[in-house]
């Protein structure tokens, strides 16, 4: 995993503080209702699926997918900050589960 961007365009003295830009990670947080929690919107959509003529849907539950980008020195730090975010803000653990998918760092665009 590259920790610095070699050959970034632009003026080095403005762009490359210590020649070590902070990596930016892309992540996806999936929030779903706990299995024990009723999902009336999912049930209504399941009923609509059969009216559409799509047969065989036995379960349909609606959650949220949240796309996040985060600057962090490394993947472990990004992961721990995003876990806190998911647990304390994006999901309500009383009724929701969450999972976090951390993708590879993306290149920092030169200003």
């Amino acid at each position, binding site marked *: 995993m590259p920790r610095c961007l070699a050959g970034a365009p632009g003026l080095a003295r403005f762009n490359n503080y210590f020649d070590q830009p902070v990596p930016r990670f892309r992540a996806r947080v999936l929030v779903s209702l706990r299995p024990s929690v009723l999902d*009336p*919107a999912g049930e209504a959509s399941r009923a609509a699926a059969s009216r559409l003529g799509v047969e065989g849907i036995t379960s349909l539950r609606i959650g949220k997918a949240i796309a996040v980008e985060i600057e962090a020195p490394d993947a472990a730090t990004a992961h721990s900050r995003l876990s806190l975010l998911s647990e304390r*803000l994006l999901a*309500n653990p009383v*009724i929701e589960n969450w999972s976090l998918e951390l993708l590879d760092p993306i290149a920092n665009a030169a200003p």
Partner: protein
Amino acid sequence: MTIGIAVFPGSNCDRDVQWAAEGCLGIPTRFLWHEERDLRGLDAVVLPGGFSYGDYLRCGALARFAPLLEEVVAFAARGGPVLGICNGFQVLTELGLLPGALTRNRLLHFVCEPAQLVVQPGACRWLQGYGPGETISLPIAHGEGRYQVDDSTLERLEQEGQVALRYSRNPNGSMGDVAGLSNAEGNVLGLMPHPERACDPLTGGLDGRRLLASLLG
């Protein structure tokens, strides 16, 4: 005696609470903008109904981070009376001042109608004007009022008399018919029905009056 009324971007029952308290009961009020921190001189705080921060993410989820609410949590911890109505109840659960969560109504409809409620005042200081088992009528108006909590917590809440208000006829699928909950100490009450809309004879019943008037002792 002064009641502070929280005002978040998207609150819409703040003025109703003001009218009920000041206009109907003669209790002075002060609006508290969500970025304020000064609760000096207040004897109670009301978190009113509405759609705080547009109800983005989840109802009440973002309001929880308002600077004002840090002070409200400290105020409640000192025993200060705090009342959360509708969206305010949702905020109280997101804050962790009351257990559980309020989720989408079972039949997905926004329900807006009078609700018959059975009151169990217990230790709740907001409900001392009502008799145990008394049935009252207050308006409800919500899309996300179905109370959800794990079974063991619900059992504990019932045993400890914290289920202060129950629907006679469950309108939203709420577990345990819960319409309102008190904390163990009795100073914090969250409820989905709107007592402030039942204080003026021009708009219907008067069953909400005793709730706000309880502060007068």
